[in-house]
């Protein structure tokens, strides 16, 4: 073995994907059903009473936000469980004793979590076409945002998984911070619809940038500029990478 431990990366990646297949109902079906419910409630029941947003029907308008909502929660939960589970069962010793460096471990775990998120994102996109007319003006950008967001939040989830000492801690950040931020982040409305004060507050919500950029790739309209969206996603990814680099340097919460 020279250079990179390809077999090692593949072993982790494929066993993580196997875990997804074992829990296919929970992994894939749940987000699909949840999304369908959102369409029925928001897109159907409420959306019929909402005016078009920037020339786009409300049902179509919420598609990018819904995908983003799933990407964030799924990326975080997949990646955090992926690395927390070996800590919990004690099988972490094997990962730590393997000839695998930090970058390879991150590629394997985060890659698997992000792959799953992207698959779910695409399934939701496909599901949404049954409910509404979806156009994608900038498909390359759409895929770009999809990938970047999945990777960035899988990195974030990976950090949470390493940090967590219990299952409760594992879910505390997603449920206390990420879900509220996503709901308040313009997934179901344009922040232009808000009173000016709240609009200003919203600009401090990082999710606004994610949703806005993603929605722009669909319909060419966003609450903030694409550059800001891109910059935020890239910056967040860089921050997570820096934290992970430090974690692996020090063995924080990994090695006594």
């Amino acid at each position, binding site marked *: 073995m020279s250079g990179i431990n390809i077999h090692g990366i*593949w072993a982790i990646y494929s066993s993580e994907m196997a875990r997804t297949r074992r829990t296919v109902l929970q992994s894939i079906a749940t987000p699909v059903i949840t999304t369908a419910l959102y369409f029925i409630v928001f897109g159907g029941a409420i959306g019929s009473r909402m005016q078009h947003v920037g020339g786009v029907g409300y049902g179509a308008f919420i598609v990018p936000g819904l995908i983003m909502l799933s990407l964030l929660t799924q990326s975080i939960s997949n990646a955090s469980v992926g690395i927390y589970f070996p800590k919990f069962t004690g099988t972490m010793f094997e990962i730590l004793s393997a*000839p695998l460096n930090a970058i390879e471990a991150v590629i394997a775990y985060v890659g698997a979590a992000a792959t799953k998120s992207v698959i779910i994102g695409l399934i939701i996109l496909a599901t949404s076409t049954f409910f509404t007319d979806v156009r994608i003006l900038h498909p390359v950008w759409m895929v770009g945002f999809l990938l970047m967001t999945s990777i960035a939040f899988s990195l974030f989830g990976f950090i949470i998984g390493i940090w967590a000492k219990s299952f409760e801690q594992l879910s505390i950040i997603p449920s206390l911070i990420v879900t509220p931020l996503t709901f308040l982040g313009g997934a179901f409305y344009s922040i232009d619809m808000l009173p000016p004060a709240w609009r200003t507050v919203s600009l401090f919500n990082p999710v606004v940038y994610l949703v806005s950029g993603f929605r722009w790739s669909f319909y060419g309209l966003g609450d903030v500029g694409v550059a800001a969206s891109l910059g935020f996603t890239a910056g967040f990814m860089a921050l997570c990478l820096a934290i992970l680099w430090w974690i692996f340097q020090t063995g924080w919460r990994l*090695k006594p």
Partner: protein
Amino acid sequence: MPPVSSPILSISGLSKQYKSGHTALGGVDLEIERGEIFALLGPNGAGKTTLISIVCGTVNKSGGTIAMDGEDIAHNFRLARQRIGLVPQEIAVDIFTTVWNTVSFSRGLFGKAPDPAYIEQLLRDLSLWEKRDAKMIELSGGMKRRVMIAKALSHEPDLLFLDEPTAGVDVNLRRDMWALVRKLREKGVTIILTTHYIEEAEEMADRVGVIDGGKVLLVEEKAALMRKLGKRRLTLTLAEPLAQVPAALSDWSLSLEEEGHKLVYSFDAEEDDTGMPALLRRLDDLHIAFKDLDTSRSSLEDIFVELVEKSA
């Protein structure tokens, strides 16, 4: 390839202080010879697992160096890790995967290309072949331990750590395990094991290291250790029980056992004059008759207990 005589593993000044402030290792120096079976003995909390864990990379060291074939393992951690296999003290497995998958996983994790024929042979050697498609959750504790061994051997390491591999294991499995260890040694694998079954170290090991309180108290060829520290016992079964050891015999270190029916003399096997003939003559003079006479050499266990007591 380094010369055969050079140690495969050289540990020097290795220390570990846990975050709790507890010093688990206080400057350990240890050299492991290529191809040997080395038994690390020590009471609970001696630092055996800590030592093994640091070499295997699952615990951070506080100080000191570890070299494999003369090269600091920190310099080329991949090469070192790839050559090391670890069977940890605690069984830890992903209970939802199958035997075959978890063993194949380990091989890949350690950077080796898949080799189904090798894995098959490994599972057969460990009597796991029948169970290859069983989920880990369906296996008994002993079976799980076999799987832990299979995982550790999956990438064909040439330095194998067995941390109390026979704890909680039945006689059959223990016998299988030692057969496997011998087979591995014949293939040139160096084995470092810790065990509480001291007879096993006595039977299996080429060299023995005694560790306590984070310090290596002694490292010795097993045979030399037995000779050097071995006490012998002369047990005389008396015709008539004695109430106490007669004052006329105070030159010898004697004790009575079994309500005065047995007179036990312990002496140093290495001494030129063991004092045994003189004792027997004196007994004759005192008209103390005995029906039976038996001598035995102390086991490694006795030696070990004595050492630890001495250092305490």
